[in-house]
């Protein structure tokens, strides 16, 4: 590249005489996708709310004057300036609890999404590209896992390994090992449509091995569907984790999660309703935001879909 001064002078002149600057002609798919995503109001608002929730959960805990694990002398206090979300019958500040619980629920959902996406996309890509009996075998395994209700199997497995400081990680691992199957199906179907395309054949003729073709040529081209499926995974992981913790098989006390908070509050359904309004609100908000972000991504990544 020559020094920047003459180039920018050139492009300035180009603009003056009514031609598009040269760099505008470079096709940048990610920039176009980002622009399209940011034109969806609901998705952008959801993204902002989700970022605020993440900040609230991870930065709020250390800053807030109460701890989720230390009780105060205010028993069963309704929401007030002192305790914005109120307290429970033992005097635990609910806002501290919700911060910690959101932190745990988000960590679990994030871990599940990353792990399940990795396993599922590699599994699906191998099945789709290799084909034949390997494809049948791999996809029958997926079918077998999908026969059983995730919640039931996860509850049993999580029960076997519960407790401890890293209990949440075990819950995440259990959920991840059971929920990657959706990703495998999505990626396989995309890879099936890509494997006979020219660029894959060209790579094969150039001498690329199957591993290189899968990781360098096929998986990068399935990023769109993978991202969309991964957002669905985040939302469903939040709901599975909270349900698991609600049943008592997920995150264990003294640690807490949004589902566990609701479990502990359900005896106070009519006397201290705030105890389950706030954790529930956070679960719904997170799941809603993730769903709307996923919608925006789906629309932005789909070249067929044009904004009306």
């Amino acid at each position, binding site marked *: 590249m020559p020094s920047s001064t003459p180039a920018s002078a050139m492009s300035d002149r180009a603009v003056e005489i009514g031609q598009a600057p040269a760099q505008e002609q470079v096709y940048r798919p990610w920039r176009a996708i980002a622009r399209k995503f940011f034109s969806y109001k609901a998705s952008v608002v959801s993204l902002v709310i989700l970022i605020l929730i993440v900040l609230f959960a991870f930065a709020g805990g250390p800053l807030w004057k109460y701890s989720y694990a230390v009780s105060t002398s205010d028993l069963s206090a309704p929401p007030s300036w002192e305790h914005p979300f109120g307290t429970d019958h033992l005097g635990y500040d609910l806002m501290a609890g919700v911060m910690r619980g959101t932190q745990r629920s988000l960590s679990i959902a994030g871990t599940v999404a990353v792990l399940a996406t990795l396993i599922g996309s590699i599994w699906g890509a191998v099945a789709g590209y290799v084909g034949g009996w390997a494809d049948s075998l791999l996809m029958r395994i997926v*079918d077998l896992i999908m*026969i059983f*209700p995730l919640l*039931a199997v996860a509850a049993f497995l999580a029960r*076997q390994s519960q407790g401890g400081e890293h209990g949440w990680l075990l819950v995440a691992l259990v959920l991840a090992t059971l929920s990657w199957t959706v990703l495998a199906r999505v990626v396989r179907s995309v890879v099936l449509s890509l494997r006979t395309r020219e660029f894959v054949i060209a790579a094969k003729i150039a001498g690329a091995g199957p591993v290189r073709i899968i990781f360098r040529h096929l998986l990068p081209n399935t990023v769109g569907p993978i991202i969309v499926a991964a957002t669905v995974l985040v939302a469903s992981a939040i709901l599975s984790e909270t349900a698991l913790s609600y*049943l008592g098989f997920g995150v264990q006390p003294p640690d807490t999660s949004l589902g566990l908070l*609701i479990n502990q509050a359900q005896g106070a*359904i009519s006397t201290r309703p705030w105890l*389950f309004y706030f954790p529930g609100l956070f679960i719904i908000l997170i799941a809603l935001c993730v769903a*709307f972000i996923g919608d925006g991504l789906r629309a932005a990544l789909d070249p067929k879909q044009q904004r009306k």
Partner: protein
Amino acid sequence: MLAYLVRRLLVMIPMMLIASFLMFVVISFSGDPLAELKTMQPPPPPEVLHAMAVKLRLDQPLLDRYWMWLSGLFVGDFGPSIHNIDIGAELVKRLGVSLRLLALGIVLAFLMAVAASVIGAVLQFSWADHIISFVAVAMISMPVFWLALQLKRLAISINQELGFRLLYTSGDGAGMTASTPWDRVLLLIGVLALPTIALSMQAFGTWSRYGRVALIDALNSEYVKLARAKGLSETRVVLAHGLRTSLAPMLTVVAAGGAGILGESVVTETVFQWRGMGDLLVTGIQNNDVYVVLGWLLVAGLIIMVFNLIADILYAVLDPRIRYER
């Protein structure tokens, strides 16, 4: 069609065998059923532990244990239970309770989803469409136990307003008797209403979103244009030509959601304290009663397979373009 049905049923047998083996291995390796007994204070005498291990067949090799379990299933023996539960009899009893909830919940969710997708597709981008879409997304994002608890709260105030107990917030109706037929109907509604609504909402949300897109696609297709050009009434076009074919892709989503709904029914039954399949599973897991969990998963797997089969059959009935014969 019949040949297809037989073929599908025959495929189910090896699938179920492999699935049951996989399940057995995973559950056997995931933990020691006697772990809690061993850490009890004071520790139980070794003879008791040994007797328990023999009872649970832990002294046998894994493959033998699987074979004993599998061959027992054919004579109705679901294996030993830590708490001496007759697992087979219990499963049958609990299944009767839970199937009512499951069937009603699925039917309600499906009917609501169809109604919502018709409104959403015919009045696309109207305020009604926007409201329905938002409600659907909100229902997908709402944890079933939270919704159930809210419904319970609502029911308590409704009962107070009415002055008598119309809606039951706990129990599956077992042991409750009603003298007149009218009271019996009222009792049935009171017991089933809240759990059914709670269970159906998440499925309604998911299904209505797919249904709306499928119906919009169908209404834009050539055969619907032809139906309109023939001069058929709009109602007939939408219901007989558009909806019928759009139900087929919707059914795939419904079938795929079978396992999810079964999991949610466990949560719903727990909230409403039903003594159904959900309670059997939860207490089974709490007590580490492995054969109860195995039996439960076996029944659940069978239900989901049958569910998928019914969906596939309906698929062919609804969409005349689909043929299963070769």
